[in-house]
Structure formats: structure tokens, C-alpha cells
């Protein structure tokens, strides 16, 4: 009988009615991070120099107006236990263009497929070095080549790198539920979806600035939260 209780609870939890909700968040950086360094190797490389778009710079901290922090993954960390979510059928794309990865930070759900594309007219290799998921390393020799990939366990900041051009790096966060977003230079995100009212733990994860956690309450389908990272250079 005891063993039935958690099973019943799970069934009830997964069958709770979900409703349209919107969580708005703003991520700000306080302090002055070190200035972005120019990646001189891009222009210096015989192949990359021909296709480079503008001056390649380090994207460790991309800060917009009023300290708005880009490339931060904001996601619901707790409050959805016991619920299962199908992986979205949309396929995000990670592109290699001008010997840089676009986007620099991406997020997918566990089991969600994503494409890795080579837009450059020469070879890159794509070397994923996760700590929890299974890694991979393959070459993309031709322009326009697309390979479909997927991670099956939650993990923040899985690094994908090209070792042919070792400055090329991108990060993919793999999340348990579909309630996540990545900030752009406005630092703002909006997480929309079928989410019941209630209390949740929401986390902001930046590859360098670290993580911040806040408790939020979604009421009438709305919640707002601000994150401020303090970086002392």
C-alpha cells in the first residue's frame, strides 16, 4: 500500500491542469568585468581570415545598456518535480560562421534535438565535452553540412569546441523542463508556457558570473524576477 502512495501522487501531479503563464526576468551585471579581448587568431588564420565577419572578440561577458547581461540561461529549477514534459519538436541550430559559433550560449531540453551546422567553406570539428552526458567529436568537412545531436541528461553549460580553431567555443545547457530562456543584450527574457500558479525556484546561470537562485510565486499566470550579478574586476 505504501508503495502506491508516491505512484498516486505522481499521477495526480502529472495530471494537474497547466495554464498559460508568463515569467519575466531581467539579468543585470553590477561592476566592471575585464574588457573583451580581440581574438587575433581569427584574422591570422589563412582560412578564417577570408570569412571573418568584423573583429572577433571574446564573448565571456556581453553587456548591454545599464549593465544588461547577455548569454545567461534562466530556468525553473524546482517546483515541477513529478511532472513530465515532452521534448520540444523545434530544433535549435548552432552555426559555425566566420570561425565563430552562433549562438555563444544555447539551451535545449533533455531529449530535444538540435542541429550543428558548418556555414564555412572549410572544415571544423565539433568536440562536445560534457561532464554528465555522453560526449562526441566529429568533423564537418563541407560547407552547409548539418549534424543532428541530442543530450539525454540535464547539464548546465556543456562545452562544444572546434579544436581546428581552438578559440571557437559554444555552450549548450540541457534542462529538465521547457521553462527556460537565454538572455540577449537587453538582459531580459520572457518564459511563456503552460505553468500552473504556485511557488517555484528559478535560477540564472552565466558561464562566468556563476549562478543565482530566487524563489518566485506565479499568480494569475504572472511573475517577475530580477537577477543582479556582482563582478569585481
Amino acid at each position, binding site marked *: 500500500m505504501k508503495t502506491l502512495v508516491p505512484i498516486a501522487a505522481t499521477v495526480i501531479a502529472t495530471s494537474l491542469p497547466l495554464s498559460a503563464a508568463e515569467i519575466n526576468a531581467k539579468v543585470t551585471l553590477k561592476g566592471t568585468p575585464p574588457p573583451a579581448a580581440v581574438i587575433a587568431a581569427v584574422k591570422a588564420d589563412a582560412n578564417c581570415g577570408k570569412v571573418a565577419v568584423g573583429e572577433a572578440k*571574446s564573448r565571456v561577458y556581453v553587456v548591454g545598456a545599464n549593465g544588461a547581461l547577455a548569454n545567461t540561461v534562466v530556468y525553473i529549477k524546482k517546483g515541477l518535480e513529478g511532472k513530465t514534459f515532452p521534448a520540444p519538436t523545434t530544433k535549435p541550430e548552432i552555426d559555425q560562421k566566420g570561425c565563430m559559433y552562433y549562438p555563444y550560449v544555447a539551451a535545449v531540453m533533455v531529449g530535444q534535438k538540435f542541429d550543428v551546422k558548418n556555414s564555412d567553406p572549410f572544415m571544423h570539428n565539433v568536440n562536445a565535452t560534457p561532464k554528465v552526458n555522453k560526449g562526441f567529436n566529429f568533423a564537418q568537412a563541407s560547407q552547409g553540412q548539418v549534424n543532428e545531436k541530442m543530450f539525454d541528461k540535464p547539464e548546465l553549460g556543456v562545452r562544444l569546441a572546434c*579544436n581546428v580553431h*581552438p578559440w571557437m567555443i559554444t555552450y549548450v545547457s540541457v534542462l529538465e523542463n521547457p521553462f527556460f530562456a537565454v538572455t540577449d543584450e537587453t538582459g531580459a527574457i520572457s518564459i511563456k508556457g503552460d505553468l500552473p500558479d504556485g511557488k517555484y525556484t528559478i535560477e540564472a546561470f552565466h558561464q562566468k558570473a556563476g549562478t543565482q537562485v530566487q524563489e518566485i510565486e506565479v499568480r494569475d499566470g504572472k511573475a517577475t524576477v530580477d537577477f543582479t550579478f556582482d563582478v569585481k574586476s
Partner: protein
Amino acid sequence: MNTDRYRFLFALLTFLATLGLVCMGGLVTSKGVGMSVPDWPTSFGYNMFALPVNQWLHGGVFDEHTHRLWASSVGLLVVLLTRWMGGSPARKSLAMVGVVEIVAGIFLLRIGPEWRGGGAFLASIGAVVVLVAAIPGLRVPAGGVLPRLAWAAFLLVQVQGLLGGLRVVLDKALVGHVTLGTLFGLVHGCLGQTFFVLLGVIALLSSPWWARLPAHGYVAGRFEVRGLLLATGFVALQLVLGASMRHQHAGLAILDFPLAYGRWWPLTDPESVVRYNQVRMDESTVTAFQIQLQMLHRLGAVAAVVAILTMTVRVGRRFGWASSLGRGVVVWSGIALAQFTLGMMTIWTNKAADVATAHVAGGASLLCLGTALVLTARRLTMPISAGMESYRTPGLPRAVLQGTP
């Protein structure tokens, strides 16, 4: 033809080629391009020796593929060296080893696709070994321990090649929390240095200079032998620490010198480590363990330099500054100071690939020269009547070997 002299020159060539290989390997790790060719022993599906030039001359592929080709050349040189040092008796043994490797390689090829790389590698080596065994002539083996040392190099070069390949193929496999790529990379780095030292010893013991080196029976110099051994041990420890740091591919754990994050001993509590990572502008993220490892390497560097300088003074006074040993320790000290400077520059240039590679080569040279000095000091302090035969070069009269104190 003076066979001994040509044999020494060939050993020297193999030794110098290995120094180049150590540098090439250091460059691959320093640039972080080791995984730019995802397969092995093929390169992008091609036979390693048939990779189109336009694919070879491409970013990090150039460094990694050149390292592979260079390693193959060194492998061939070592097999030839084994044949030459071993003389006629080595032919049968080499042929047997070659055949066993071919059979084992074919067996692995048939097990399954995951063993195909190792199988092809083993079978190819076996074929090369059999061909070298078939070389006629070169009948007289080298004297003393040289044939055995050559066989040790023969074994090491194959293990080293296999490790280098498995480091690529099994890069993602986990042992606990460590990937086999990291583990094999570390062992590959350390074994490379050991292999380099072994070839240095072979070149030394096969040299005409060594054959002429007299045994003085300087019993009073035994302390110096032990001291040189200890200082060389410090260098070896430093190389292991350095390889551990490099093969974690974590970038520089500490970015400033002589201070460490503004202190003589950095804080390594979780909050401090988060703060350090926040202000790093490279892509790496360091851990407390990596910071402590670099601090240990810094302390080890001071200990090694102090030990080397101390032994230089002791050896210079005991054996004379103009003696071979005296001149050797002066060069050793010079390399040690240069190596210390390169270590500082590695930090100040944020691990520039050329500087970091020079630091690797400096470490290898220090270890190799240290070993040569230990052997030389040991020979000079060896009682004249004992153990001389094992070092004797055939054809050289005993009287010359013993010399005059």
C-alpha cells in the same frame, strides 16, 4: 667503416628526432588542438600517410597530424635502432615480435569496429618490424646494456603510440569523474619524457666520449652522485606535476606571478574560486585543486632550482669546473634558470603556445641532462675494478677504459 661511430650517430639522430617529437607534442597540447583529428589511426578516414595536403595544412590539424607523422618516423627510427644495437641476434626476436603483432592486429580487426583502430595500428607496426628484421648485415651487437636499452625503447615507443591513439579514440570514456582522454593524455605526456631520457641514455652510452670516460674510483664523490640523483628526482616530479596541469586543459589556474591572486598563498574556499573565475577573460574555469596544483608546481620549481644549483657547486668543487662533469652541471644550472624564467613567462604571457612548449622542452632537457650527469658521476666514482665490462664498447682496450685517475 667504424660501425660503432655510425651506430652512435644513428642513436643521436633518433634522440634529436625524439626531442622534436616532444616539442611537437607540447605544441599540440599548448594550442589545445589534440582533438582536431577525431579519428585514429586514420586521419579523417584517410590512411594517415595519405591525408590530402589541403586538409593537413589547416589550422590545428597541421599540428596534430604533423605530430602523428613525426611520431611514426620516430617509431621507425627506434625499430631500426633496436635492430642495429641488437645485431644479428635481434633479427629473430624482431621477426617473432613482428609476426605476433601482425596476428594480434588482424585478430583485433576481426573483433569489432571499436577495435579496428588498435588492430590496424598493431598490424602495421608488426609489418614494419618484420621488414626491419629482414635487413641484412649489421651483425655485431653493441656492447653492454645497449641492446637491452634499445629493446626497452622499442617497447616504450609502441606503448606511447598506442596511448596517443587511445587518447583520441577513448577521449570521452569515463573512469570515475576523469575521462580516459585526460588520463591517457597525462600518461602519454610523462611517458614521452621518459622515452626521451631513455634515448638520451642510449646515445650517451653508445658515444665514443663515454667509451673514453675513465673510471676514477672517486669514492669521495658518492655524495654528489646521490645529490645529483635527488635533484633529478625533483625535476621528474616537476614534470609529472606540469603534465597533470597541462592535460586537464584548464588554462592557467593562477594568472599572476610571483603573487597568486594577489597573495603569497591564494585563498581556495568556494567563494574565492567563484570570484577568480568571474574575472577570467579566457573560456576556462578553474577549481581549487587546480590552483593548489600550480602552487605545488611553483614550490617544486624553487626546490628543483635550489637542488640543482647546490649540486652544481658541490660537483664543481669535487670534480673540478673544467672536468666533463663540472661543465655538465654548469650547463644544467643554465637550463634550470632558463626553465624557471620560461615558467614565469608562461604565466605572464597567459600560456602563449610557443613559450609553454619551450617550457616543456626545457623540462625534458633538464631531466635528460640530469640523468646523464648521474650516470657520468656514477661511472667516475665507480671502483676501477668493478662493473666496467657492462659499459665497455667492443673493440676498445680495457686499459683505455680504466684510464688514469
